[in-house]
């Protein structure tokens, strides 16, 4: 029978199936971060060991400061959180990439760039954006602390088989339109709970045309439509990306593995529980105006007017969002002035993202302050080799270290109450970037355009034609 990519991943990981349908599945890679302390506490409370430290990697990202690292003094809360992870890693024999390590960075940037994440693997972490790793054709999803503890103790998880959804993006993205715009357009179409209970496979020529970085951006945002994981079938782009990565198989082993990975693609005629099709030509540079990622509109649009919405529940939600965001009903998106920009996060802090932002900022000044936080120490080094740091600094932006930074606002990088930020991150929830913060999601190029204009702008009008 014709199988989907997900069917193949599922079949290759099921150890046992209970009568009630619950399946025990094997976990190939387990990443842990500072927030995993609850799970380590559970392991200790039970007097257990970590079953497979050799399949577990600890990486500090959520609490790593991006600026002022040298000023940290004993007793600092961030140091305590990072130290706690390091101590847990040491106690249980887990490799640890902490602040200052050349491999440190955001887990969802580091895992793929080191070749720790591979096609066909089941990858979990106590972080919802673990969906990112699906870009390589892995089955990757976020779990809570109890499940993290279960994986630590057994290297397995109990799972129910999710439903499948294929999102096919036909045609070609236009100039200035990126994977982030594609992700926001998908979420706007299916809604923030449109894919609850589903695994999404992204397919179609516009997805195939994306770089690995772009595919990671797309899969990263899957959770914002409710899907616990998103994935793209491995192809030559995937194989080329992984060849020579330090933690991936090497030489003949790699080529043998690659041949197997290419077999993971969904078979012709494989059936999905739900199909969604989007034409790439319909996707414009997109920004969010509200407090959920589905509140996304093309840059030329106007903010919705609740008085013109028939559904009273939706009108009330829009009214509440506009009030929180400090926006006038019906105003043009282009008239929204910003206070700050942020370029970073597991969604958009890879080298390609920094290049896209730098291309817009080169020779220009930002009208507002802002922070650029590369996704990993490696991305930071590469960006500096390419001189991108100088472009950001010349534009008036701060060039920081790598970590989750102002996306999760847990490391001290945050907005002041009421501040409005054009941000390359993934969530515009109330208070996400600090109490009272106002977050607008968009692509790195669109953030750069907003920085130059001091308000939302169409990047297509700024880049050379």
């Amino acid at each position, binding site marked *: 029978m014709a199988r989907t990519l997900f069917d193949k991943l599922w079949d*290759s990981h099921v*150890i*046992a199936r*209970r009568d*009630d*349908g*619950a399946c*025990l599945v*094997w976990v190939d890679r387990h990443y842990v971060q500072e927030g995993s302390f*609850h799970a380590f*506490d559970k392991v200790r409370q*039970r007097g257990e060991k970590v079953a497979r430290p050799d399949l577990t*990697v600890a990486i500090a990202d959520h609490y790593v400061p991006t600026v002022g690292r040298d000023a940290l003094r004993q007793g600092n*809360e961030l140091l305590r959180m990072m130290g706690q992870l390091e101590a847990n890693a040491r106690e249980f024999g887990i*490799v640890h990439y902490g602040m200052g390590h050349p491999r440190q960075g955001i887990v969802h940037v580091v895992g793929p760039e*080191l070749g720790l994440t*591979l096609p*066909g693997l089941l990858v979990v972490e*106590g*972080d*919802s954006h673990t969906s990112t790793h699906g870009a390589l054709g892995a089955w990757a*999803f976020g*779990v*809570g*602390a*109890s*499940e993290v503890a*279960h994986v630590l*103790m*057994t*290297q*397995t998880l*109990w799972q*129910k088989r*999710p439903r499948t959804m294929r999102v096919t993006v036909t045609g070609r993205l236009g100039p200035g339109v990126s994977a982030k715009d594609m992700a926001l357009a998908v979420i706007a179409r299916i809604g*923030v*709970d449109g894919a*609850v*209970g589903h695994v999404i496979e992204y397919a179609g020529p516009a997805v195939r045309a994306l770089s690995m970085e772009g595919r990671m951006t797309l899969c990263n945002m899957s*959770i914002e439509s*409710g899907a*616990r994981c998103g994935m793209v079938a491995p192809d030559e782009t995937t194989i080329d990306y992984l060849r020579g990565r*330090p*933690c991936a198989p090497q030489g003949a*082993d790699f080529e*043998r*593995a690659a041949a*197997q990975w290419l077999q993971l693609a969904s078979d012709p005629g494989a059936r999905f529980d739900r199909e969604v099709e989007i034409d790439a030509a319909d996707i414009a540079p997109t920004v969010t105006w509200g407090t959920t990622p589905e509140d996304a509109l093309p840059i030329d649009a106007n903010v919705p007017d609740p008085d013109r919405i028939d559904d009273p*529940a939706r009108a009330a939600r829009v009214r*509440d969002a506009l009030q929180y965001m400090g926006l006038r009903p019906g105003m043009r998106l282009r008239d929204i002035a910003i206070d700050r920009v942020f370029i970073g996060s597991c969604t958009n802090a890879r080298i390609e993202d920094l290049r896209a932002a730098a291309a817009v900022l080169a020779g220009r000044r930002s009208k507002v302050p802002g922070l650029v936080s590369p996704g990993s120490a490696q991305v930071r080094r590469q960006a500096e080799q390419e001189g991108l740091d100088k472009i950001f600094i010349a534009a008036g932006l701060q060039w920081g270290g790598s970590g989750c930074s102002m996306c999760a*606002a*847990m490391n001290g990088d945050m907005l002041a*109450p009421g501040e409005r930020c054009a941000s390359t991150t993934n*969530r515009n*929830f*109330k*208070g*996400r970037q600090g*109490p*009272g913060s106002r977050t607008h999601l968009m692509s790195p190029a669109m953030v750069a355009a907003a920085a130059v204009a001091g308000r939302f702008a169409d990047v297509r009008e700024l880049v050379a034609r």
Partner: protein
Amino acid sequence: MEPFVSLTARACVLAWANIDTDQIFPARFMKQPRAIGYDKYLFHGHRFDAGGCPVPGFPLDDPSNRGTRILVAGRNFGCGSSREAAVYALVDYGMRCVVAPSFGDIFASNAVNNGLLPARVAEADVEQLMALLDGLGGEVTVDLRECTILAAGERFSFAIDPVWRQKLLNGWDDVDLTRGYADAIAQWLQQDQRVRPWAGPPAV
């Protein structure tokens, strides 16, 4: 884990949709150890101002809703971040059940792992239930054996995955269950090493 069979308790209405886990438990409190009690951070951004003073008007703080153990909320409750702290905050507050038309997948898993019942009720029924509770709160009985909710003489049915239902009814712990599969795991690993030799430990 404490089993969930049936519960009669005060229910509080939170009538909006897409309540994400950042709302339930703001990230800035995640450094705290669980032992201090996460209930004080539950919906913190909605219940307290920047200076930490209580903000009146949040339904949970209405005097009539004292002792609430059940939440009735809009669709997609618990979307967003995977933080189990959101569930800890609800549980530490005394919650045993959230009733909503749908849940974030990770939140629902986390809930079940902590004995908190995520009861899925049709959207129209949730609206009716909220109306019966005057949009604020009232006594509700949730029965997991029957998968029913009783409020003001009206009966609603709810859905929950059968695996999760069994787990909650029995208070099962997954690690204990998994220990019974040690042989199956060892056997599976042996054949997997032949099929996927590249899936083994990475060279770190």
